[in-house]
């Protein structure tokens, strides 16, 4: 099976959809001739033409509105927002329009738009190239919200989002583009080459929306993570020798409550991880729902290990990023809680 990094897996997913569905188009800032600042659409304009793959003016609201307009007229647009930090000029078009058009028109108009955007830290991007804004979108009814943690899921989940008739926010943890990252900045950059999830089947497949992946079975504590934090969780559990069950959520809305609740009811303990600031982050929703569904089983308070409630700093990146030490400490604390 071919080995791909996450960028190649995403390119492959878009390439196949452009080939198989004439309604699919993709655009964004630097997406056309250049192929995107991270190269996710590289080569696609040459292959599929400027009418299918093109550059867009630097106006995120207009990019999303154009996507919605195209979608309500039969197209299936994939819009790239260059960095998740820059999606907010388009926030109103997402919240007031894209997420509601099916509802407010009672199904007469629908907008199957996929918005792809790189998110997350770990690249010294400072406060405007490191955000993880997923929580904002989980509070908007009508949006699918997904974030893969590896090339295999990236291709399958992006394909599922493109094919879904619901609008989808697809977050790409940019720190994982070229290799898995376990939160240790001192290690040399890993590669997806010899990683099992770097094995990406040729041709079409999907990873279903709403289904989590238990990446590590365990008895003592449930760890819920997505994106880069999945890898940090695995490394921290190994390091501490904690028998943790690690769930890669993959889809945030709608998330896989059955897998989550079953696991927490089994372990009785839960730690939630994300890069985003803690207050009103998606970890809050997970904790609130879990304490309700698993109240009888909980033997320790649910811990959240997250980014801090500050803008994402530059020099102090590794004091901000919820790395292995902080995750390990939370695991021990939770497992030992009595």
């Amino acid at each position, binding site marked *: 099976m071919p080995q791909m990094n996450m960028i190649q897996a995403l390119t492959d997913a878009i390439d196949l959809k452009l080939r198989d569905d004439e309604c699919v188009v993709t655009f964004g800032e630097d997406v056309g001739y250049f192929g995107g600042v991270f190269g996710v659409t590289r080569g696609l304009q040459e292959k599929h033409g400027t009418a299918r793959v093109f550059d867009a003016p630097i106006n995120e609201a207009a990019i999303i509105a154009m996507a919605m307009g195209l979608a*309500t007229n039969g197209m299936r647009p994939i819009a790239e927002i260059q960095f998740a930090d820059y999606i907010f000029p388009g926030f109103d078009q997402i919240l007031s329009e894209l997420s509601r058009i099916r509802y407010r028109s009672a199904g007469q108009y629908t907008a199957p738009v996929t918005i792809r955007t790189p998110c997350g830290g770990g690249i010294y991007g400072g406060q405007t190239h490191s955000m993880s804004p997923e929580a904002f979108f989980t509070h908007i009814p009508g949006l699918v919200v997904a974030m893969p943690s590896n090339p295999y899921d990236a291709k399958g989940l992006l394909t599922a989002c493109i094919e879904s008739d619901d609008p989808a926010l697809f977050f790409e943890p940019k720190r994982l583009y070229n290799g898995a990252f376990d939160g240790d900045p001192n290690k040399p950059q890993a590669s997806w080459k010899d990683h099992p999830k770097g094995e990406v089947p040729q041709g079409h497949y999907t990873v279903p929306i709403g289904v989590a992946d238990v990446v590590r079975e365990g008895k003592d504590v449930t760890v819920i993570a997505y994106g880069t934090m999945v890898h940090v969780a695995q490394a921290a559990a190994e390091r501490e020798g904690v028998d943790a069950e690690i769930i890669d959520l993959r889809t945030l809305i709608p998330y896989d*409550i059955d897998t989550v609740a079953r696991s927490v009811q089994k372990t009785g303990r839960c730690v939630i991880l994300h890069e985003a600031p803690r207050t009103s982050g998606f970890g809050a929703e997970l904790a609130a729902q879990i304490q309700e569904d698993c109240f009888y089983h909980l033997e320790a308070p649910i811990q959240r290990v997250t980014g801090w409630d500050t803008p994402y700093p530059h020099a102090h990146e590794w004091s901000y990023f919820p790395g292995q030490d902080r995750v390990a400490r939370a695991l021990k604390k939770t497992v030992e809680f009595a």
Partner: protein
Amino acid sequence: MGQAKPQISVPSPAFRPGDTPDFDKLGLPRPGDHPRPDILADASETLPLSFGLVGVLDEAGKAVGDWNPNLDPETLRQGLKTMVLTRAYDDRMLKMQRTKRLSFYMKCLGEEAVAVAAAQALADEDMIFPSYRQQGALLQRDADLVDMMCHCISNEKDNLLGRQLPVHYTNKDLNWFSISGNLGTQFPQAVGWSMASALKGETAIGASWIGDGTTAEGDFHGAMTLASTYNAPVVLNVVNNQWAISMHNSISGGKAPSFASKAIGYGIPGIRVDGNDFLAVYAVTQWAAERARNGGGATLIELFTYRGEAHSTSDDPSKYRSKNEYEAWPLGDPVERLRAHLIAEGEWTAEDHEAWEADCKARVSAAWKEAVSYGTLEDGPHAPVPTMFDDVFVEQPWHIRRQRQELGV
């Protein structure tokens, strides 16, 4: 430089409550003054049109000049009839709101031509992305009065299942988009929609309307930028009815010589037209639609008119503008002007007009009776409560299903 003083100012309208309006200073050009460029002319040729005012009907009610669309009488009669029907519909719905049968309503008095003539000049396949004040275009496309009313009173026949505020119509069968409460969002969407049409090799174009105040939104600039960059086949209309709720158009327009002139900086044709002149609105819309359909891209049209009534049932205009501005408006009333024209042409009579007015009243009353027979907002029946949880997603996900169960429906 020490004694120099930067100074800011806040624009204010010429007249406020208590003043007697006098619009002579508007200094509007005479109808027939403007030449009509070729539909594929370079955008720069429209420079004078963007500062001027295209008109066809002169004071005597004659159709004059280059822009005369030379429409057959039947077409004009039909347009007049729709405008009168629109007015009758508005009157009735406003009354019903006053008696609390509607939660909210918005009239388009004085702006009927802006919507009706444009809808007439467009093809039925063209997608309309309206604001909340183009009900005339919906009626021009023969929307069913009862359906429109059922929406406005959110009863069990409301095609939007009671989800939307009154007047926020959606009607896909009539190529009428879903009206949003958020100003201006439809402008760039219309550009995207029209691009899809072109990409699919179809001939349908998009047309959108926003108000003078809404031109200040970022989405106006986004729409113009997209339309310019991609040469999108779309007609972008700005209805300058002088007011944005209580704010005079100089608050959003600032020192701009006109709203149409904003097109210049995008390399798009800009045309200002007398919005109360049915023939002129038809002619300019037709020009823009043909240009778009023939690969010429977008046009920005400013429809110069006046908002005859309150912004909505939520405000009292006598609090912020002088009483008889509407009467004093130099460009008259679109219904009266077209009526006078047809009568002058011997194609319509005062009796015809009265008869048609009576007919519209009757149709509207009958429709209302039928509409309320399907329920009202206050007493229902409404769409079944469980439908409140549908259409958020294609399939109801677990968390919404749980919430529905929590409500016990």
